[in-house]
Each structure stands twice: as structure tokens, then as C-alpha cells.
């Protein structure tokens, strides 16, 4: 009845040999057992985009997990080399990590500014910090919300989207776009803050604190959720560092490393805040719950930063330092890394003295964070794999660039 060829494993480019075995039943019969290869994605609902995972399972236990990426490859780096101006890269950088576009443009703008040795006005720095932290909240809200969906709770997702909407309204008010802003320019900003921005941002901070508590009650500390995520997908400290994971994932593993503090840029050193580290409250340090809770706590810290930055916002002209011609020296090169919502976002730019960059390498945090997935997925169940992949919080736009 069933076509036998369908039961054959598909050819694996990795030359994985499917292990076979035998078990004896109580009646004395022997039954052939075989590992099964399942394709998870690229159209699977919980792979957060077009990630394809080839998983070898023994029952529901994962024996091996091979990620295949590149379905969303848009040649970001090649495009950059063809731009006739550094400024034109920024709309493309927006589209890398579309959930956190503001931090992307900042990273590229910062790299170009260091390459050109531009000092930006104080006000620009403050506004950038406010925007980046708002963006971090928006991005973490998506991460937390979709993590709820992964674990089966649909409702928190929509609550987070209501809150995110308020942040996007702030962005739209400021620069006219809701998702891909092109707001942070090399040397400055495209617009100054609109008149009512500060008031509304303060309102948002007020509004969001109780919402965070509600989200924690509804999801983070729900016993079912805790039982699902605690002790699952444990990423030990040394493996995390060896795989150069960054951001909430690294901090979830108990490494106190935040580029905003450890490789300072902008005005973060003037503000008071604490990097959040996973403590293994519900299970082992570095499990999925730790990564989740680090994001929740980080949102609180973002609110603190925003409050301070709003209070200390100086006057100034946001377009004062924008250069007329962007033409770095010949053979100048720089690697600038910033703490984006997902971790270390670095741009390695090499100039050849012309107006278009010679080489731009984007070191995306999601790309690197995803590469550790096979390490931590082994031995988990399929249901856990969904949660592990969700806790990494990948954005395929950035993984594939």
C-alpha cells in the first residue's frame, strides 16, 4: 500500500548514515528500528522564517540536527560593494534584521563614522540611545511573544504586539516609517525629535512597566511554561563563548558581557544600568528559561536607560555633523561592533578611497547564535527543539543577509 521509496531517507548532503537496530518484544519477536529523518522547515510554522532544520530523530528524541540556511540570502554584502555612496547602504542594513532595524543602522553608521573620524553632536547620541533602546524593547517583545506561541500560548503574543505598536507609533512619528526607518544617518539623524515625542515616550515608559509584570505573570512564571523551558537546551558557559554567541543568549548562559559596557560606544557609560545575567533560577544556568527571563529583565533596564536619556537630552542640531562627501581614506579598515537586540552586531568595512565601500562584512548576531543550535539540540525532544530554536531568537533576514 505505502510506497516503499517514500520511507527511504532522503539523500543528505552531510552523508549522515541512519542507524538501524533491533528490539525484542515481550512475545519474543524482533522488530526492526530505524532513525527517522524529518525536515523541519522552511515552511514549518515555528522556524521563525525560512530556516530549514534537518533533524534525525529516534522516536521523539533528537539524535542530530543540521541547519540549512540561505533561503533568504539577498546578497547584502555584494549590494554594499555596488552602492555609490555609504549612505545608500543604510536602507539595506535596515533590512538585515528587520525586527531591530534601528540598531542595525546605528551599527553601520557608527562604523562609517569611525572610519571617517566624525564626532557626532551630543544630542544625536542621546536620541540614538533612546531609539535603540526603544527598538530593543520592540525586538524583545517580538521574541517573547513568539516564544509564547512556540510554547503553545497564543495570547501573550498579541499583548506584546499591542505594546510594540506603541513603540512603532513613536518611531513613525519621528521618522515616518514603522519598520525600516533609515533614521540614523552617517554623522547624524534624518529628523530631529518631533515636539510631542518626549512626552509620549515618558507616557510609554509609565505604561509599559505594569505590562511587563503582567507578561511575567501570564507567561514567564506560569508553571507549565517553566516546566517546558527550565533545564531544556542548556548552553554551558564555555560552549557559549567558544561559539561566540552574544546578546541575551550569552548572558543567559551566565557570562556578564555586554558591549554597551565592555566595548563602550556612544553615551552608555554615562547612564546607570546593569547587564542582566541568567542565574538558573528555575533550573540550570543557560537553559531556555534563563534566556527568556534575561530578555524580560533587559526590557526593564531599557526603560531605565530611556528615562535617563530623556531626562538628560541636550539641545543641538542633529544634522550638524553629516558630511557632504563620504570618502574615507584609501585602505582604511575598521571593525565596529555594537550590542544590537540579539547580540554583537559588527560591521567590518574596508575602504579603497572611493565613494563606495570596498568590502562590507556584516557579522550578524543571529547568524552566529544559530550556529550553536546543533550543539544544544542533541538529546532534546522535538517539542523542545521548537523551544530551543525560539529561545535563540533568530531573524532569518539577518542569518542569511
Amino acid at each position, binding site marked *: 500500500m505505502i510506497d516503499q521509496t517514500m520511507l527511504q531517507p532522503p539523500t543528505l*548532503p*552531510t552523508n549522515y548514515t541512519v542507524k538501524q537496530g533491533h528490539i525484542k518484544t515481550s512475545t519474543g519477536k524482533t522488530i526492526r528500528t530505524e532513525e527517522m529523518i524529518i525536515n523541519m522547515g522552511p515552511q514549518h510554522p515555528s522556524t521563525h522564517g525560512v530556516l530549514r532544520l534537518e533533524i534525525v530523530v529516534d522516536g521523539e528524541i533528537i539524535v542530530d540536527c543540521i541547519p540549512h*540556511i*540561505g533561503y533568504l*540570502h539577498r*546578497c547584502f*554584502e*555584494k549590494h554594499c*560593494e555596488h552602492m555609490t555612496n555609504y549612505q545608500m547602504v543604510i536602507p539595506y542594513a535596515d533590512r538585515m534584521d528587520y525586527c531591530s532595524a534601528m540598531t542595525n543602522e546605528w551599527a553601520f553608521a557608527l562604523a562609517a563614522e*569611525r572610519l571617517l573620524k566624525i564626532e557626532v553632536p551630543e544630542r544625536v547620541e542621546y536620541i540614538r540611545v533612546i531609539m535603540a533602546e526603544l527598538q530593543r524593547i520592540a525586538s524583545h517583545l517580538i521574541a517573547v511573544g513568539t516564544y509564547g506561541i512556540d510554547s503553545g500560548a497564543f495570547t501573550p503574543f498579541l499583548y506584546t504586539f499591542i505594546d510594540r505598536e506603541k513603540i512603532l507609533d513613536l518611531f513613525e512619528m519621528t521618522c515616518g516609517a514603522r519598520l525600516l526607518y533609515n533614521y540614523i544617518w552617517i554623522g547624524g539623524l534624518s529628523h530631529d525629535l518631533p515636539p510631542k515625542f518626549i512626552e509620549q515616550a515618558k507616557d510609554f515608559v509609565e505604561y509599559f512597566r505594569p505590562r511587563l509584570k503582567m507578561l511575567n505573570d501570564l507567561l514567564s512564571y506560569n508553571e507549565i511554561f517553566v516546566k517546558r523551558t527550565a533545564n531544556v537546551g542548556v548552553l554551558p558557559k564555555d*560552549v557559549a*563563548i*567558544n*561559539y*561566540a*554567541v552574544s546578546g541575551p543568549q550569552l548572558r543567559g548562559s551566565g*557570562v556578564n*558581557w555586554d558591549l554597551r559596557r*565592555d*566595548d563602550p560606544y556612544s553615551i552608555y557609560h554615562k547612564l546607570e544600568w546593569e547587564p542582566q545575567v541568567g542565574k538558573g533560577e528555575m533550573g540550570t544556568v543557560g537553559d531556555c528559561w534563563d534566556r527568556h527571563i534575561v530578555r524580560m529583565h533587559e526590557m526593564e533596564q531599557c526603560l531605565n536607560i530611556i528615562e535617563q536619556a530623556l531626562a538628560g537630552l541636550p539641545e543641538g542640531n542633529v544634522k550638524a555633523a553629516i558630511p557632504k562627501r563620504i570618502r574615507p581614506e584609501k585602505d*582604511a*579598515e*575598521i*571593525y565596529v*561592533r555594537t550590542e544590537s537586540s540579539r547580540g*554583537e552586531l*559588527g560591521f*567590518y568595512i*574596508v575602504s579603497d578611497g572611493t565613494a563606495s565601500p*570596498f*568590502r562590507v*562584512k556584516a*557579522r550578524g548576531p543571529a*547568524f*552566529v547564535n544559530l*550556529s*550553536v543550535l546543533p*550543539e544544544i539540540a542533541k538529546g532534546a525532544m522535538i517539542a523542545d527543539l521548537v523551544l530551543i530554536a525560539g529561545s535563540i531568537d533568530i531573524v532569518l533576514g539577518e542569518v*542569511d*543577509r
Partner: protein
Amino acid sequence: MTAQDIFDILKVKFSDALTEKKFDTVQPWVRIAPNKTKEICFFLRDDSAMQFDYLSCLSGMDYNNGTFGVVYHLTSIVHKHKIVLKTFCTKDNMHIQSVSAVWGTANWHEREAFDLYGIIFDEHPDLRRLLMPDDWEGHPLRKDYKVQEFYHGMKVPS
């Protein structure tokens, strides 16, 4: 630890593998030989004074003159110092030793560099294309790259 100190220590141990250095730029770099990368990187990672346990970025390069290269940006989480390593190869001999045994993160970065530049990393455990399809022709980020006309009968927009 400054780049000079790191260079001095390395010079003692691997004198012949260090061929060039540049310290007057924003980010000082040291050039190492392509067949010694693994050894040097192991030393950099494990030496207690260095402890470069964090490979920030690994980028392939095409210098548009027949020279290809790989740039390593290293950080130490413990000591918080940084160093940039560079290694070069020529178009006829695109072999560079893999460092994926040293840092797990290098695995995917090297696969990406292989995919986009065609640099072959010796001793890499799983050197397959990463971003492009397995049967794609050419290496797109090379400066002399020409888009193939058809891919499985589909016209490739140039």
C-alpha cells in the same frame, strides 16, 4: 595588553609565521602565515596572558589583485583586549588552515567564506556551501564574479 605586547610574545614563539604587522591604524593587525593559523590561534586562545576565547568575526576578503585573505577579529572576554589577525593566499593556492577546531563559531564563518570567495579551509570538518545552493557556480563575492545565466533552467537576473 597592547597589540605590541601580543606581537612580541608571538614573535618569540612563531617567528617565521609572522610576516607583517601594522600598528599605526585604528585597529592594529598582525599578518600570519596561512598554514600556521591553527597553531597560532590555539596558542592565542589557551595562553593565560592572552586568552582570546572569543572570535568576534571572521571575514573573507578579495583584494582585487589576485590576493585573497581572511581577517580574524579576536577578543578576550577575560582581559577585554582585542587583536586583528590577517592571513593571505593567492588565487592559485586558495588554501588556509581552518580554525574551527579552536573556536566553534569559525565553522559557519569559514563555510561562508568558502561559499562566497572559494577559499578552501584545510581540516574543516564540514566544508559545504552555506548561503548559496549546493550546485551554484562560482563564488559571488569575488570581484571578478560573473553571474551564471541559467540556474536549473531559470533565468538568473543579473
